[in-house]
């Protein structure tokens, strides 16, 4: 809590964290197969998306189904920006001149994608963040649908429903891990600060929040915009991981996957979001391998395509029945220095 000790210790912890991440990103590809490295990259991207989704959905209590809309915007914006001039000429001949002329690197195009999503979140959120409960879920679902329809019809920019391709495959393990570290550090600092306290107050009771001087709309909007930034970043990472994608990649199925990760892990906990990503990713990887069928010698399990989705749905139902606030509830794992609750006096941890 005390200032003089706090800063160097935080710095030290940060450096240690970075060193650890560097070691992991260097070591992992030496130890495991290419396939597993790719699984880890996707897990990192999903973790960025789920953690940022939890910011609005879990901490301010605005259940948005529109997060993947921002992911789509991030993927397309950064994709258009980082496409080489040659690829632009080949795939997007009708692009306006000012866009056709520029090619940005991976990092700048990712940042621009994030900022475009922030601006979009401001426009969308200003009217929508007044709503609560089911209304906001339905309205943000409307946003997702609008994004999808616009992407399909803005043929000059996106090739419509056809595959958008030629995006450089830049999302390596260090990039994915690095962005995840940034996202977690930023979200943790915000959530466990006076700003995050405002989020929780608004989530708990909007009337009482007003009675202690909080305007509900700007509080929610700031969380929504910060979440949208990392949705855009995650979209860019995903786009530069896939290289080719279509609007269908960023729609209802992906929304369901991310929401089940968030809900299973625990919406009101940052580490819960990460736990949810790992749990669901591992489960679906295992199930995906199983659904191709198994030959156990004595008897064979026939292929059951689609079984992984069914099982995932069941897991979600079971979690909702037996642990409605997710695996972590509102608690945090405090192993890593980056996710430790910050600058909270005694009484932050809740005794039960």
């Amino acid at each position, binding site marked *: *809590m005390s*200032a003089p000790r*706090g*800063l160097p210790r*935080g710095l030290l912890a940060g450096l240690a964290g970075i060193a650890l991440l560097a070691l992991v990103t260097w070591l992992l590809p030496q130890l495991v197969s290419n396939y597993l490295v790719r699984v880890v990259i996707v897990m990192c991207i999903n973790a960025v998306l789920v953690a940022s989704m939890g910011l609005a959905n879990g901490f301010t209590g605005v259940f948005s189904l529109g997060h993947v809309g921002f992911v789509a915007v991030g993927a397309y914006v950064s994709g258009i920006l980082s496409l080489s001039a040659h690829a632009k000429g080949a795939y997007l001949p009708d692009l306006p001149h000012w866009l056709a002329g520029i090619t940005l690197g991976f990092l700048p195009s990712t940042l621009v994608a994030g900022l475009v999503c922030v601006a979009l979140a401001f426009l969308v959120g200003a009217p929508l963040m007044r709503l609560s409960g089911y209304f906001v879920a339905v309205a943000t679902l409307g946003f997702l649908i609008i994004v999808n329809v616009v992407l399909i019809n803005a043929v000059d920019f996106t090739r419509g429903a056809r595959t958008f391709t030629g995006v450089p495959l830049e999302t390596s393990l260090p990039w994915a891990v690095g962005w995840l570290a940034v996202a977690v550090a*930023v979200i943790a*600092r*915000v959530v466990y*600060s*006076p*700003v*995050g*306290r*405002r989020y*929780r*107050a608004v989530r*708990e*009771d909007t*009337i*009482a*929040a*007003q*009675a*202690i*001087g*909080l*305007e509900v709309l700007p509080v929610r909007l*700031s969380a929504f915009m*910060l979440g949208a930034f990392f949705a855009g970043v995650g979209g860019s990472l995903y786009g530069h991981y896939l290289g080719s994608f279509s609007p269908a990649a960023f729609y209802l199925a992906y929304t369901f996957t991310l929401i089940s990760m968030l809900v299973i892990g625990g919406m009101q906990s940052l580490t819960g979001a990460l736990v949810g990503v790992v749990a669901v990713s591992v489960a679906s990887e295992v199930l995906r391998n199983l659904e191709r069928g198994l030959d156990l010698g004595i008897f064979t399990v026939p292929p059951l395509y689609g079984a992984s989705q069914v099982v995932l749905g069941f897991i979600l139902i079971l979690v909702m029945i037996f642990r409605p606030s997710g695996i972590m509830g*509102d608690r945090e794992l405090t192993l890593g220095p980056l996710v430790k609750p910050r*600058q909270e*006096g*005694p*009484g*932050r*941890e*809740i*005794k*039960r």
Partner: protein
Amino acid sequence: MSEAARSQAPGSMDSAPLLETSGLTKSFRSLVALRDQAIVVRPGEIVGVIGPNGSGKSTFFNLVSGFLRPDSGSVRFDGQPIERRSAAEIVRLGIARTFQGTRLFKALSVAENVRAAAQLRHPSSMLDALVGTPRLRRAARRVDAITGELLGLVGLTGRAGVRAGDLPYGDQRRLELVRALATQPRLLMLDEPAAGMDAAETRELMDLVDRIRRRFGVAVIVVEHDMDLIMNLCERIQVLAHGQTIFEGAPAEVQAHPKVREVYLGHA
């Protein structure tokens, strides 16, 4: 918090009004909930508003605290009109309220409830949080100090880490009271603070309200159903019935007035 204490003599009649309503009228569809209400509260004064259910007490309360807009009439706080301000703005100007039956942030700890309110006067932005500015640390220290002091005041220091929703009812009431106080108000409005409390708890609460008033120099408006609480605590009482003010005066006068006896005490 101590610098917030003010030295005005409680209820001195020569000081300028802190709160002044006039012609306050509000209807819900065809029902007139409050008609032409007027009240003056001076700094440090403690005023009661009583009346049977449906008399317009809560409407009055919500109009002043900004949760409702009046159809007509004005609410002036410290000389400026506030009837069009939002509830949050009104808190910032210095009017804090509690709720009938409490509205705590139930899943947050006791201390977090108070901190959330105390940080209104010691704000920090998202940038402060990201960078970890000196301002953030200074604000956190002030907020923690205020929280510690206020929890001590109501004897909740030992339960700072308990989930607010798990507190016994009386403690929830006290917590809500200090949460309102943490916004450093000049006017504290209590909505039926004794509802659901027994006689001993009610007496304890009255003592607390009186202590708070003297220590922090806040004016208090108590909206109550419970006649006894109002009689012992308040310097002046306004009686409402069917949305209209039927009498205003000192507690003894109120008790003696035949119309009040008829409308409010009725057949007690």
